[in-house]
């Protein structure tokens, strides 16, 4: 294993200290509870937003803490959910009296840990709402699976709901917006390589030189299908078909598009992917009204990408354009 680390046991803590030091104007870090919080919080009268999950997906979620987005992000070990005591502490620390929204990605561990954390806070009279993001079309949503995973739509939900909270929407309204974003967002990912969890020391799975994994999650968990590597055009066509037909997206729709790198894919390839996606959308009469291209929800050093499309109404576009000031997203300020 080749990694720029000191001790595997210290990876998460040392990275947290680093992000705190690099963005001291925006963030403060509670190292004991492995939580990143807005430096200027709690904001009285504003609904607070908390997310969290395993580490290894940077900049998500800590990079999205700041004005117009999250109030706190709880970090677990690499690819491991944070624990209920972290969510409890974060919720109490950021509550400005208007309640707290937990944005949870649909993974068994995350859901159970956030549930326990919310129960602890509700028992003390703090208003907590939770919305579970489950946008990954690669997973069949049925009684026979843990349900669809939460992936790229999470980033878009954090931005849009953060803007809604900032303008003064109440907890119910922000939670409803989050559910709406989740309902209208769809994603799918793929990998060219595996990734290595520092504490595990070896790749989570092996892929041959001419193989790719379609429908990959963000934890190095294998996807649904392994196949021979194809051209970017064929891969994007395959993935966008799965995404577009699922909602389904229709001619005349406006979307916010996220072409996301998994951590080990150069930007030149992501822009090439965006070009393919843009052409497919144009041919179908779908307008990409806003977009992000880059590494926003990663899987350590995995090479690969994911596509997220969110059907957006005018209100969502207004919220998208609203000012945001976080380590990873910044505009309008």
């Amino acid at each position, binding site marked *: 294993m080749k990694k720029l680390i000191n001790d595997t046991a210290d990876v998460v803590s040392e990275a947290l200290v680093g992000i705190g030091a690099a963005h001291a104007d925006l963030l403060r870090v509670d190292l004991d509870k492995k939580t990143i919080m807005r430096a200027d919080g709690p904001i009285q009268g504003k609904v607070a937003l908390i997310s969290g999950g395993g580490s290894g997906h940077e900049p998500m979620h800590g990079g999205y803490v700041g004005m117009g987005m999250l109030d706190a992000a709880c970090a677990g070990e690499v690819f491991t*959910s944070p*624990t*209920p005591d972290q969510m409890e502490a974060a919720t109490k620390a950021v509550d400005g009296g208007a309640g707290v929204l937990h944005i949870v990605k649909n993974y068994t561990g995350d859901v159970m840990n956030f549930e326990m954390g919310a129960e602890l806070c509700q028992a003390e009279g703090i208003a907590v709402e939770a919305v579970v993001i489950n946008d990954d079309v690669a997973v069949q949503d049925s009684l026979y699976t843990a349900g669809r995973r939460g992936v790229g739509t999470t980033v878009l939900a954090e931005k849009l709901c953060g803007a809604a909270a900032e303008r003064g929407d109440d907890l119910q309204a922000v939670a409803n917006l989050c559910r709406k974003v989740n309902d209208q967002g769809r994603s799918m990912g793929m990998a060219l390589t595996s990734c290595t*969890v520092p504490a*595990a020391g070896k790749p989570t799975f092996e892929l041959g030189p001419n193989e790719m994994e379609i429908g990959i999650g963000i934890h190095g*968990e*294998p996807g*649904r299908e392994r196949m021979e590597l194809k051209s970017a055009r064929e891969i994007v066509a395959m993935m966008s078909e799965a995404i577009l037909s699922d909602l389904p997206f229709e001619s005349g729709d406006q979307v916010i598009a996220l072409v996301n790198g998994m951590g080990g894919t150069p930007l030149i390839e992501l822009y090439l992917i965006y070009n393919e996606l843009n052409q497919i959308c144009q041919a179908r009469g779908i307008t990409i009204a806003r977009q992000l291209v880059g590494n926003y929800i990663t899987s350590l050093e995995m090479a690969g990408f994911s596509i997220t499309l969110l059907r957006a109404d005018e209100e969502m576009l207004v919220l998208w354009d609203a000012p945001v000031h976080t380590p990873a997203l910044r505009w309008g300020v």
Partner: protein
Amino acid sequence: MISIENLLTWLIALQTTYLENKQYLTDLDAAIGDADHGINMERGFTAVKQKIEATDHNDVGSLLKITAMTLISTVGGASGPLYGTFFLRASTACARKTTLTNAELVNMFDVGLQGVVQRGKARLADKTMIDALTPALEAMTQALENGASLTNILQAGTDAAEHGMQQTIPMLAKKGRASYLGERSIGHQDPGATSSYLMLKTALDVWGNEET
């Protein structure tokens, strides 16, 4: 009869068990999950060991509660809430007790299992830890009713858990991260069922043949 000292011995031995099986459990998890189960269990029980060795214990319930709260705050993933809930419920079944009869011990495991079922919402044959624990509890209850010794009760439970664990290999996962794999989860032994089997096996190893 199981004393507080016996329980301490078991909980401390679990740290050794999960340390020795850290790689094994992580490898099983790499096949159908996210390659961290052994790492998380070892981290959790190392914290439990440190915590319970540093404190005096007057009753079984509070010892198990400390174990539960430590697991909840250190394990993470799905295993944290599941094993945490197991020990939390087990602790309520042993409140203010200083010893456990064989019947009380079996009841402790059973109440813990019911907590896991509630928290995880899994059913038998979903390829989870309850596929090891449910048959184990059936076998232990049966052995108890037959008047078996503690060793024989634990032997029956461990054997049934081991069989249940092996039975997860051909199963299609319906819960947890392995369920994302669909058909590809078939052919792999469930890591959670394996760590549950190890929990019982460790009880047999430390309490068996210690005719109490």
